């Protein structure tokens, strides 16, 4: 949203038809102050993936993945007993830590606006409720459920471990599913992260989105808008799917065109059902770089406890406030938008 506050984007409300804009699913992340600044382009469902063959091997029900934290720990235990590394991925480039917050941190919240309040220091990360997700990550580590090379491996090679049958569960992104499903003959499953949190947002599927906007300095915004309209016609949406193998964001896309059963069922549960957005998109760059990523990395590594991660996050939120006093108000305005 900082791009909007710095004046880089035009509002789309006058330029695109209301219907097209709404159908494109821009998500709440594209709105500010009553205007919408992005049209949805393609979705990024955020999922926890698991290898169904490995679940079978461990005696788990491949079609009923764990839903609660207790079930998750039990599943990890069973996987470990048969010699499979239960959970994890690749942490070296840091994105796993971001995704972990998307899935786990959000479970402790009631509204998405609450996340922003924490990022800007209006609420405190030192409150145990808000650092609980890092405590849970610490728990996974101390129980020995995370893969040993997690700190040195990068995100995508980490997901490959699940696909290759070397890791039981991991965090993944929906757009990988077509390829991964094909490579394993449909044996990659998608689940919502098992629930430990008591916030109202817990247990809901998460769908992020990539969007298209129009620059403030655009020479011909009407042409740009017409192009976006064109991209959102059912024919073009179908063509997008055919060319990329992935889904466009608009609800005008005919879901029957999806061939892979896993992708179809995933999209049904994520895109076509009530979902929430990715809270890590709401954090200022400084928080992202200096708190979101290092906390996850260090908890997994064992150099920070969950509580210390909360301290780090709180401190960085304060530092952001000191470094960026001119943005605090804007973010507070945004909280109002996001809490509706």
């Amino acid at each position: 949203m900082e791009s909007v506050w710095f004046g880089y984007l035009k509002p789309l409300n006058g330029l695109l038809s209301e219907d097209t804009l709404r159908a494109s699913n821009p998500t709440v992340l594209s709105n500010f102050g009553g205007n919408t600044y992005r049209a949805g382009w393609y979705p990024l469902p955020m999922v926890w993936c698991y290898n169904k063959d490995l679940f079978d091997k461990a005696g788990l029900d491949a079609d009923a993945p764990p839903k609660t934290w207790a079930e998750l720990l039990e599943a990890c235990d069973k996987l470990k007993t048969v010699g499979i590394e239960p959970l994890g991925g690749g942490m070296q480039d840091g994105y796993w830590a971001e995704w972990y917050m998307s899935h786990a941190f959000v479970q402790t919240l009631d509204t998405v606006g609450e996340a922003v309040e924490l990022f800007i220091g209006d609420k405190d990360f030192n409150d145990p409720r808000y650092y609980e997700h890092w405590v849970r990550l610490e728990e996974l580590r101390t129980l020995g459920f995370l893969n040993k090379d997690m700190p040195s491996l990068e995100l995508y090679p980490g997901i490959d471990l699940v696909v290759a049958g070397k890791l039981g569960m991991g965090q993944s992104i929906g757009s990988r599913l077509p390829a991964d499903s094909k490579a394993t003959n449909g044996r990659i499953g998608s689940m919502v992260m098992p629930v430990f949190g008591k916030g109202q947002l817990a247990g809901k599927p998460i769908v992020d989105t990539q969007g298209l906007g129009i620059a403030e300095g655009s020479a011909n915004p009407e042409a740009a808008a017409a192009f976006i309209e064109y991209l959102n016609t059912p024919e073009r949406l179908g063509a997008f799917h055919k060319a990329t193998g992935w889904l466009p964001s608009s609800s005008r896309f005919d879901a029957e065109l999806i061939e892979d059963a896993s992708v179809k069922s995933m999209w049904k549960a994520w895109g076509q059902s009530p979902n929430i957005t990715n809270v890590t998109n709401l954090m200022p760059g400084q928080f992202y770089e200096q708190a979101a990523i290092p906390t996850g990395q260090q908890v997994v590594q064992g150099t920070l406890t969950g509580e210390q991660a909360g301290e780090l996050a709180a401190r960085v939120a304060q530092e952001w406030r000191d470094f960026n006093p001119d943005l605090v108000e804007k973010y507070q305005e945004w909280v109002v938008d996001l809490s509706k």
Partner: protein
Amino acid sequence: MMLSRKLTPYLYLAPMLALLTFVFGFSILRVFEFSFKMVRGIDGPWIGLRNYRLVLSQPLFWESVKHNLILLLAIPAMVAIALLLSLLLYDRLRGWKIYRTILFFPYILAIPIIAVVMKQMFQFSGPVNEVLRWLSLDFMALDWIGSTDVALWTVMMLIIWRESALGVILFLSRLLSLDESMVEAARLDGANWWQRAWHVLIPQMRGVIEFYVVISVITMLSSVFAYVYMMGGGRGGPGTSTMITELYIYNALTRTSLPGIASAVSVMLFVVSLALIYLLFVIRRRDHGDGA
């Protein structure tokens, strides 16, 4: 005629002065200016020393500086390795030219390339650890890339590996320019290889060793961006264990939109570099007096 005579030097100088004024003059003045402003995008209001105060009270900044200082520990190792190898090459045993060509090779490869290769070699489940485990040296199979305790030392290993090669060439050319009679005399007196090296050769290399140390110090403080950017996943990771000053500046500029903060740190780095160069100047001047 007289007029053009007077102007000629300045005409010849003009392009150089224009370029330097733009790239350096403008930049240095502007970076000082920005360091006192709250810059958003292109400009911002004057805020005096606030940027400096914010940065100097931020743990992350001091961590970055600390990491640069830790990298200085690479220098004794670099000097020792370069000395040893250059002295061995100086013996000019059979095939020494081939050895020299190979030993300089690390410096030929660009840093990004070698960093990508090293990053793979030192993966927790990668070839280096595989060999170590195979040799039953499991305790040495550390998490070179992923551990916050080890990562910076891994970067340091890479720096030592590459920068020692430069030392070898600098030291060797100095050795090859020395008068051999003193070494001969020492050998006839019964001095062994080590004694000849320690008492005759190394003292004559003092100038080039000092020079190498000073430029290495400057490198560790202000020119290790490429190493860290490639090895640390672009963000000084894991955690913040490989964050260094240049990366701090880069992040402040590109990832957190705080050019004012980036400028403040740049100014501090600039001042420190100038001080070190002045030191080098003093050393070289002293050595030129010694006839180095």
